[in-house]
């Protein structure tokens, strides 16, 4: 069996007394798309942020492309160059133009020349369909456009893996589709992707595997069609019922959790 692109072993993470991740084991094969779903507070974003060490795991190991990220000797900046990350809040650099958002990291981090960085930036802006916004500032773009620029920025670094942390959760509903379309193309091109999302239709159609997390553990994982379409575990089923039809949820009683995650 080939070496997995992402490998997570016995991962624990605590914030003070709050034990957010309670032993996660997960592998993502090269070229696979894995969607991580689960109620808010289940630790799925923390799991993703442990993969590129934005959060320091309390215990356990993470490997990306065969390099142990959690090794204290590792050059974390070098590892992160190979891992693209897209955030819920886009996090574009507001003080520079769209093109400069793409060229600044290439030049400062990869040491690329001006013209090469500009060329890579142009290609990636075309890839996300925003070549005409090259000279705009982030504040002049819609949320969906900003998120596509953020994806293009990550792609400009030539990553082997892309992490998406709820990339469409901050978007108006009519803007979600454009971002998902870009991600779909990326998946079809063979990018290894780990996506924390609430978009069940995206998970079902695009993901090779779906992981359902709750309470800091993986409750259920398997092929997308099975986990989303025919969940085995009652907690998965309960979660999916709520998210697919939020209006059907019962008023929170002593047994139920908070409002439907969204």
């Amino acid at each position, binding site marked *: 069996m080939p070496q997995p692109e992402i490998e997570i072993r016995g991962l624990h993470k605590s914030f003070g007394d709050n034990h957010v991740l309670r032993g996660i084991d997960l592998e993502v094969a090269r070229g696979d798309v894995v969607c991580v779903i689960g109620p808010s507070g289940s630790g799925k974003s923390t799991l993703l942020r442990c993969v*590129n060490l*934005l959060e320091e795991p309390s215990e356990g190991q993470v490997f990306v492309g065969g390099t142990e990220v959690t090794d204290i000797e590792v050059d974390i*900046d*070098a590892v*992160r*160059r190979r*891992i*693209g*990350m897209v*955030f819920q*809040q886009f*996090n*574009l*650099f*507001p*003080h520079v133009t769209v093109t400069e958002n793409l060229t*600044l*990291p290439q030049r*400062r*981090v*990869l040491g690329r020349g001006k013209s090469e960085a500009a060329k890579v930036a142009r290609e990636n802006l075309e890839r996300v369909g925003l070549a005409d916004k090259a000279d705009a500032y982030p504040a002049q773009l819609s949320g969906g456009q900003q998120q596509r620029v*953020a994806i293009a*920025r*990550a792609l400009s*670094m030539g990553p082997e893996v892309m992490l998406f942390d709820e990339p469409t959760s901050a978007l108006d509903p009519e803007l979600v589709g454009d971002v998902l379309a870009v991600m779909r193309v990326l998946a079809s091109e063979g990018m290894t992707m780990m996506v924390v999302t609430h978009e069940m239709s995206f998970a079902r159609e695009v993901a090779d595997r779906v992981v359902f997390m709750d309470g800091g553990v993986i409750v259920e994982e398997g092929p997308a069609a099975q986990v989303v379409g025919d969940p085995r575990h009652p907690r998965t089923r309960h979660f999916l019922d709520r998210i697919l039809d939020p209006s059907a949820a019962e008023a929170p009683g002593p047994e139920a959790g908070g409002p439907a995650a969204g």
Partner: protein
Amino acid sequence: MTSRLSRRQRRRISQGIQYALFVAALVLVGVLADWDRLQNQFAQKDLAAELFPDIITTALRNTVVYTLSGFVFGLVLGLLIALMRLSSVAPYRWVASVYIEFFRGLPALLIFIFVGVAVPLAFPGTEIPGGTYGKVALGLGLVAAAYMAETIRAGIQAVPKGQMEAARSLGFSHARAMVSVIIPQAFRIVIPPLTNELVLLFKDSSLVLFLGVTLEERELTKFGRDLASQTANSTPILVAGLCYLIVTVPLSFVVRRLEARADKAK
């Protein structure tokens, strides 16, 4: 028991009384002051005319040079201290905190006297580069750095956390992310308060008075005071004061514009 006047009527009457008192106070000061004597002492036209062009070409020019050199030195030092204050290395944070409390807690005048006396004592045989200009930059800058450090620190902390995370996830080191991403945004935030600091420095440059300066090194206050005692008339003081206002009032106006623009950008 309720008053027969409505709330609005009562407010109007109270405002009317306040306004009447205000006007009365103004008129009283205007009537009681001896304007002739004031004019004699402060506003002699021929004396004022004699001040030019030296008051501009030497005094105002020196004030500007002192202010700018102090500002630049203070800005560099202030940025350094702000970064130390935010460092993960505890001793850096302590040193920065002590520095800020120390220099904010002392009158600028004391610092100036200290720079003039203690530095030559502590490092005998060495001159502060730039002579008086170097001493002034040092004295003004040391004090300004303490205030600017706090301003810059607040500016850096006002940059959303996601900016650092995005930069780090792209492979920037912490230092590179600071230089390329965080500090440029922080400076946009702190331009209005830093301009305010410039106004304060402009006035504090008058403390050069206590360093002992040559004729060519005199700034507005020293120049005004010297000529006032030479002519036994205070007109030079008034003219010097007007020279300060020519610079500080437009600067304050710029600060307000910048603040208004920053508010709108939010």
